[in-house]
């Protein structure tokens, strides 16, 4: 048993709080959580039952927090956790869980299984049992400031491109701006049109905004891999930058885990409340629309549906703004049957998309989303998370579907009234 493994087990033990203890005490192994998990529903493999992914943590809990377990351990009737336990469970903990939270919504005894898996990852990552892709991403995030190796130079180059296209300037390190926005590396690398869109929207709405040269990255690999120290370091940079600039708000972009990291986990990671507020870009856009600071020029006549990013909606609480916005630019918005807080995951969250080993499983799990899209009878899916977008496009291509995916912020920007004299148009 290596020293690193022992540290991992110690960390796992530290994660067992009253919630975890209550959850394990309450679980009656009814198996209902399996029916909410796309990894189970699309493979039929009972090992992907959410609560089953927690067996190593349960073993430790039993030995340290229950009378029977402590007695069994004392009498040598139960073995301590072994490296093999972690080795055997690593794929269940990381490859077959996107931390989507559906299981937490259906458990009859109210267990937040997603919370439990996040905590279990703290032990696994400390013990060295985490996917290589995630380890690399976290390392880059800590050393370079971005999991995808995006440096300040490349961000500035992308901003220069945006400025040239829009004729607008993107403020950097603007002291006292109202809003400091973050980007996910995925947006900078794969969907820079998101940056252009917000530049145009903010210009029209007269939003006082800036980015920080010290902390532009929204994604938090520390959260995904399950390492609170790394997560705290990453979110701490954003907090320091925001407080140095004296902004009132930090805008979380179209990235699911970025939102849960900065909005919900962040203050607990750094051990204190922020001096600023956090707002998701969708919340801000909806607010601007409500205030009349942005108006739309017509609507698309094409039927569209919406994929709800799990971390923004179910785990984040941003449920209605996107619907209000989409109804503002689409004549025919068709909801998926399971929508809002009960929509199904794209299959790529929780670090799964960064984990090459999980590609085949993720592919199978996508079947759930494929069926959802096909049931709507609609060929255009709108979403608000760069990672979801990638996963949807991957799955659509693999399944030879006719569907196109669009980002919501870009769609809003496309229909933005920039001149009062422009006439409404339907495309």
């Amino acid at each position, binding site marked *: 048993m290596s020293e690193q493994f022992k540290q991992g087990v110690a960390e796992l033990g530290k994660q067992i709080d009253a919630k975890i203890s209550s959850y394990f005490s309450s679980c009656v192994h009814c198996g209902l959580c399996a029916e909410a998990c796309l990894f189970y529903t699309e493979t039929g493999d009972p090992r992907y039952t959410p609560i089953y992914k927690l067996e190593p943590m349960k073993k430790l809990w039993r030995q340290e927090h229950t009378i029977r377990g402590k007695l069994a351990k004392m009498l040598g009737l139960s073995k301590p956790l072994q490296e093999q336990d972690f080795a055997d469970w690593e794929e269940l903990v990381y490859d077959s869980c996107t931390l989507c939270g559906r299981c937490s919504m259906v458990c009859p005894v109210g267990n937040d299984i997603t919370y439990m898996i996040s905590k279990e990852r703290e032990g696994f990552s400390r013990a060295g049992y985490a996917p290589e892709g995630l380890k690399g*991403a976290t390392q880059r995030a800590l050393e370079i400031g971005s*999991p995808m*190796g*995006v440096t300040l130079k490349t961000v500035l180059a992308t901003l220069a491109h945006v400025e*040239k296209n829009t004729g607008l300037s993107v403020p950097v390190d603007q002291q006292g701006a109202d809003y400091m926005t973050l980007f996910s590396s995925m947006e900078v690398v*794969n969907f820079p049109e998101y940056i252009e869109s917000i530049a145009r929207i903010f210009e029209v709405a007269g939003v006082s905004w800036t980015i920080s040269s010290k902390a532009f990255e929204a994604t938090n690999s520390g959260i995904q891999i399950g390492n609170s120290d790394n997560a705290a370091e990453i979110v701490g940079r954003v907090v320091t930058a925001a407080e140095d600039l004296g902004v009132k708000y930090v805008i979380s972009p179209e990235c699911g885990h970025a939102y849960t990291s900065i909005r919900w986990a962040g203050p607990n990671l750094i051990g204190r409340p922020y001096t600023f507020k956090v707002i998701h870009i969708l919340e801000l856009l909806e607010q601007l629309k409500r205030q009349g600071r942005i108006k739309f020029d017509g609507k698309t006549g094409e039927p*569209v549906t919406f994929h709800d990013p799990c971390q923004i909606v179910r785990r984040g609480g941003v449920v209605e703004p996107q619907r209000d916005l989409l109804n503002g630019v689409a004549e025919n918005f068709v909801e998926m049957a399971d929508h809002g807080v009960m929509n199904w995951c794209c299959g790529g969250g929780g670090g799964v*998309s*960064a984990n090459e080993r999980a590609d085949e499983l993720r592919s199978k799990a996508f079947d759930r989303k494929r069926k959802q899209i096909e049931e709507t009878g609609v060929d255009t899916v709108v979403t608000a998370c760069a990672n979801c977008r*990638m996963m949807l496009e991957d799955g659509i291509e693999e399944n030879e579907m006719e569907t196109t995916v669009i980002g919501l912020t870009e769609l809003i920007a496309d229909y933005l009234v920039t001149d009062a004299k422009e006439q409404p148009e339907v495309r």
Partner: protein
Amino acid sequence: MPNINNDTQLRQALKQLDHKQLRETGAEFVDSVLHLCSDNRVSHAVDVARNSNASDDELLAAYKSARVATVDSRTRCGADCNWDEQAAHFVARGSAAMVAPEGVCKAADPPWQVVMSCRMARNCALIAADDDSINDESENQYRIMNDYLNP
């Protein structure tokens, strides 16, 4: 036809073109950055787009193939980004939008997707080369459109 020298004019000019003309101009836009991508599926899409006798089936096949090329070439989440490969990805993305069948996803505005993807391809190439030059692909596109409209 007055000279195009900004995006508003470019957008308006694109709106005046029919589907076949959009394909032809799209092919020119993509061709200007094609050297950044070595994927045969992408160069094939350009050839099909330029072929005025291309059948609907050929166009559809090229579209599907270019879409797969787009997804195949993208940097995965959390991976160390290679900006040369990203440049190729955006060329592929532009090529797919270029041969998108008429009426497919009008909400995503395929003609403008071609324009933007080609610019992003150039941007990625500059980043890869650590070149601080200004990305002048937009000027190149205005010139291409002017030449097309005023042959």
